[in-house]
Each structure stands twice: as structure tokens, then as C-alpha cells.
């Protein structure tokens, strides 16, 4: 039983607020990815949960134990540091064994768990080496193995795969997911990589300027962002937004209308792949400016009413630069945001 509960945690560095009244719950055995731009407070949050940083206010609970004022060792968690912190004076084996040795486990257990973690992260061949003789990606995997070896109930990971090549990252990701699910490890996983967050997480928490903007299942984060920021941050290309005005109980534009009780200016958000491309007369007029062939699809950049929009077309679509085509929106797949607050209505 090791859920993480964060209640109203704030962190001030001098005058700057790094975290503001942040609430977050990670259920027992759940995998939550923390996604957000650089400097939004992800590492700070992890360090406060781990007990490495003091908080300015709020509480941290692990299971139903208030650990807010406990030293790191007594919180019963493991962590992968953003800059690895692999001990240079110890071999890879001893690095991975470090936590187990501190727990005074017997040699046979240490040997078994170290080998297991090392196999999982494919660092078995380097066990006798010192970290100075490893590449950055290999060192990073040592850091992950060190955390997995102690079989923690709670695991905090700060961009643990950021230094691996795309293929290895894909492989490690799948391995991590299955191992952590099997062990029922409660995991909070910081990443910059959206596809990683999408693929790994039970839920994604999108963080922005010290607050969590939205926490939800990956598909909902993607298709139903709760704010302008989430829509613009998640997905590549990001969500498109059109400035419209709602009146008379509905929101309408060329070839599209949906009921809406809100009155006044709103933003209509939609994903580039959620539109049907039709004749110009039957939808929203879209003037194609740039065509980028991406292999699996074409990425079209153009303008609608002077606003920049990106949509996705099938790879064989017969589209040329300068053409105006129609975009047909699906009322079930759009989001409407308040122009003022940037929040979903």
C-alpha cells in the first residue's frame, strides 16, 4: 500500500514560486507521467516527495503515513536522478548493489537482484567496469538499475531514458512498463518526451509554472485538453485553435455548428488529424502554405481566417501549395475554451 498523496505543496526559492499549492495523487501501483516544459518544477516536486528539498507548505503522504518531515531513507522510496548520480568510485555492480548493501541483504540476494536489474537494462556486460568507462546512456541505465534493484514500493524517476537512442528507449520503455506493472510499483515518472508519457503512463499530469494543469488518461489529455496550454503543449503538431464568437445557444462557422450555452468569444480547438478534407465550399476555408511529407502522412500548414492551422492529410492526397481546401470539423472531437481564461468550457 504505497499511494503518493501530495496536498497543497508549495515551494518558494527566494521570491520565485517553483510550486504553487500543488495537489496530486498517485494511486497504489499506478504509473503517472509528469510532463511539462523545462523549469516548470518537475524535479523540484520529485525532490520534495523524496525529502531532498524542504517544502514551503503542504503535506506529502506515502501510503497513509505523513512523511513530510521524515528523512529520505525513511520514506521507503527509490529515485533516479536527472543527472544520474552514479558513484564514480564504485563499479557498476557495486553501484547497482548500493541500496541492497545499505539494507544489509545477504550476498546471494544482492547478487541475484543486481543481475536481474542489470539484465533488464542490458548492462550485464559492464558490471565490472567503473562509470567513467561508460557512455552517458549506459550510466543512465546504471542509475535506473540501482533504483530497480531495491524493488521499491515507490519509484521516482527524473527523465530516466533521456540519453538513450530512439530504438533503445523504445525497448527500455516496454521493459520498464512490464516490470513495474508486475511488481505493482507506484511510479512517478518525469519526462519531456510525450510519446514516452503516452505509451507508459496510466495517467499523465501536465505541469505548467508550478501547477498541474491537467491530470488524466493519456487519450483524454490528448483529445480533451482542459486548457489552452495543455492543448498547445501535448501532441505534435499541437492542437489548432480558431477564434470564434458563440451566440444564440450555438457555436458555428462554415459547415460546422454545435450547441453551446456560453456567449461571447471562444477558442475552438481541434486536432490536425480529426478533420475531414473536403471541397472548399463545404467546410472551413484552409489555404495551404507548406506541405511536409512525413512518410505516414502529409503535414499541411496553412491559414484559416488569418490564423495558422496545421492539419494532417493522407500521404497520397492530391494537394498543392497555394490551394484552398475545406476542413470539416467533427463536433464530437473538438474542445471549446474560454478566450479569457484559456480553460475548457
Amino acid at each position: 500500500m504505497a499511494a503518493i498523496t501530495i496536498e497543497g505543496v508549495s515551494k518558494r526559492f527566494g521570491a520565485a514560486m517553483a510550486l504553487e499549492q500543488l495537489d496530486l495523487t498517485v494511486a497504489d501501483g499506478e504509473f503517472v507521467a509528469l510532463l511539462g516544459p523545462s523549469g516548470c518544477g518537475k524535479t523540484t516536486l520529485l525532490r520534495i516527495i523524496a525529502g531532498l528539498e524542504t517544502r514551503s507548505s503542504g503535506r506529502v503522504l506515502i501510503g497513509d503515513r505523513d512523511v513530510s518531515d521524515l528523512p529520505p531513507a525513511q520514506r521507503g522510496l527509490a529515485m533516479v536522478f536527472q543527472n544520474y548520480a552514479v558513484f564514480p568510485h564504485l563499479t557498476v555492480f557495486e553501484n547497482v548493489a548500493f541500496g541492497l548493501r545499505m539494507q544489509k541483504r545477504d550476498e546471494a540476494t544482492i547478487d541475484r537482484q543486481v543481475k536481474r536489474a542489470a539484465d533488464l537494462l542490458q548492462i550485464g556486460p559492464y558490471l565490472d567496469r567503473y562509470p567513467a568507462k561508460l557512455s552517458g546512456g549506459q550510466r543512465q541505465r546504471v542509475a535506473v538499475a540501482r533504483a530497480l534493484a531495491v524493488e521499491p514500493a515507490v519509484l521516482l524517476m527524473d527523465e530516466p531514458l533521456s540519453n538513450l537512442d530512439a530504438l533503445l528507449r523504445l525497448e527500455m520503455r516496454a521493459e520498464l512498463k512490464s516490470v513495474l506493472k508486475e511488481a505493482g510499483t507506484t511510479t512517478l515518472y518525469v519526462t519531456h518526451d510525450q510519446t514516452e508519457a503516452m505509451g507508459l503512463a496510466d495517467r499523465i499530469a501536465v505541469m505548467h509554472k508550478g501547477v498541474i494543469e491537467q491530470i488524466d488518461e493519456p487519450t483524454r489529455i490528448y483529445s480533451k485538453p482542459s486548457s489552452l496550454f495543455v492543448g498547445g503543449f501535448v501532441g505534435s503538431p499541437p492542437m489548432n485553435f480558431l477564434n470564434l464568437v458563440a451566440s444564440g445557444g450555438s457555436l458555428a462557422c462554415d459547415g460546422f455548428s454545435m450547441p453551446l450555452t456560453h456567449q461571447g468569444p471562444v477558442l475552438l480547438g481541434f486536432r490536425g488529424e480529426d478533420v475531414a478534407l473536403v471541397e472548399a465550399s463545404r467546410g472551413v476555408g484552409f489555404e495551404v502554405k507548406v506541405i511536409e511529407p512525413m512518410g505516414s502522412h502529409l503535414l499541411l500548414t496553412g491559414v484559416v481566417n488569418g490564423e495558422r492551422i496545421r492539419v494532417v492529410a493522407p500521404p497520397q492526397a492530391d494537394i498543392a501549395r497555394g490551394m484552398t481546401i475545406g476542413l470539416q470539423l467533427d463536433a464530437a472531437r473538438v474542445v471549446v475554451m474560454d478566450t479569457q481564461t484559456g480553460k475548457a468550457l
Partner: protein
Amino acid sequence: MPTSRWLPYLLIAPASVFLAVFFAVPLVQTIVLSFDGGPAGLWGNYQRMLGDLNFNVSLRNTFMLVLTVVPLQMMLAIGMGLMLQKMQRGREVVLWIWTIPLGVSDLAAGLVWLAILQNTGYLNTFLFHLGVIDGPTAWLNSETPMTLFIAVVVAEIWRSTAVVLVIIVAGLQLIPKEFGEAADIFGASAWQKLTRVTLPMLKPSLQSALILRTVLAFEVFAAVYAIGGRNIPVLVGEAYVWQRENQNYSVAAAYAVLIMVISLAATAVYLRLLRQKPEAQA
């Protein structure tokens, strides 16, 4: 291009010449002088040195001082360095105060402690007022070798721990804080963190500090002389006596060479004992 090939040598030439003139030449001269035993032959000066009444006792005193002072100093400096590391505020001020003795010459330091510890010194005045002693008590003469030795140890530690401290503080600052944090997370106690993470990562600094301090400690003299005169003979003191009072430069040179050999041997031992596998470096 020829100029670029010779340029490095040209650039180190002034330093090399300086070292040769002021270091290598006197060194060679001293060594030559020490083996110039006249009628007594090559080892004549060394035989006189070994036969000297004070030789054994000065050798023993020097070693005892080094073996007492240096380990105490290292432990003190590590403790002080770790304390500084923990301080949130005022670290600079405390470090500055702790390093004041660095600016005091060893003779002056010896005189300071003499003023404290002599018959009518501050310590006796203080103890007298407390009622512990009934009058001036001698701590520093030949009848009280133990307190004399302790006084010299205290003075030496006060005077020269700061050098070790500065090296250790610099070394500690080079260790990224994440290493200690990782140790915390994985359940290391304060002692385990010190012995398994901090000290191993501090090894290069410890090695420098040990070599520097040991070599200097073998040359201990002025503070000892100020506090104990010749009641506590040490090697450099004997060299001084042979040079100044006996006007025998050759035996003084033999002492100097002996001190150098001991220092070099100590350095070699440290380099070997504290050797770090090159691949284990950060």
C-alpha cells in the same frame, strides 16, 4: 613551423631557469656537502650525525609529532569541513576565522602559545583563579616532557590545520550534492555516507593534504623552538644547531638530506596507499 615547435620550451624556460638556480643547484650542493666528510670519508658526516647525542631523541620526537599531529589534523579538518558544508549561512565568515592561523608565521604561533602556557601565562592565571593550582606551575620544561609535548602538538594543530581545511573544503565543494542525496535515498546512515561516498570521493584532496602536511610536519621547528627551546629536540632543530652553533655545515647538510629522504619516502607511501585506479576517477 620551427617557431611553433620551440615556443613551448621557450615559454617554460624562465620557470625552469628559476627552479634550477634557486632549487636544484642548492639541492645538489647540499647533497654534495653532506657527502664531503673530509678525512672521515663519504659517510663521515652521516656517522657524526648518527653518533650525535641528540640524534635518536630528535628523530623520535619528530616522528612522534608527525604521527600525532597529522592524523589529528586530518580528522579535525574533515570534521570542520563537513560542518561548514552543512551550514546554510555564515559559512564564509566561519571559514575565514578558521583560516586566520594560516596568516601567522610558525614562530609567531609558537610565541602565542608560549604566552598562554608559560609559568605566568594566561592558562596558569586562569587555573589559579579557578583554584586548581596555587601558584605559577611549569608545564614547558624538561621535567614535564608530557605537557611539553602536548603543548607543541596543540600549537602545531592550531597553526597548521587550516591548510588541510582549505584543501578539504575545496574538495568537498567539487562533489556534486546528488551523490550524498543518492546515498540518503538508498538508506545510508550518516557514517556510511561518510565512509562509502564522501571520503572515497574526497580521496584526491585527502592525498594532497596528507602529502603537503606530512612533508611540512617533518620540517617542524620554529613553534617547537619557541615553546620548548632545546628541551624537545627535533631534526630540523638539530640541523639548525649544527649550522649556527657548531658552524659545521656538512653535518647540517646531512640532517637536511635525511629530512628530505624521509619526506620523499612518506610521499611515496601515500601515493601508493591512496592510489586511485584511474578509471575510478570522476
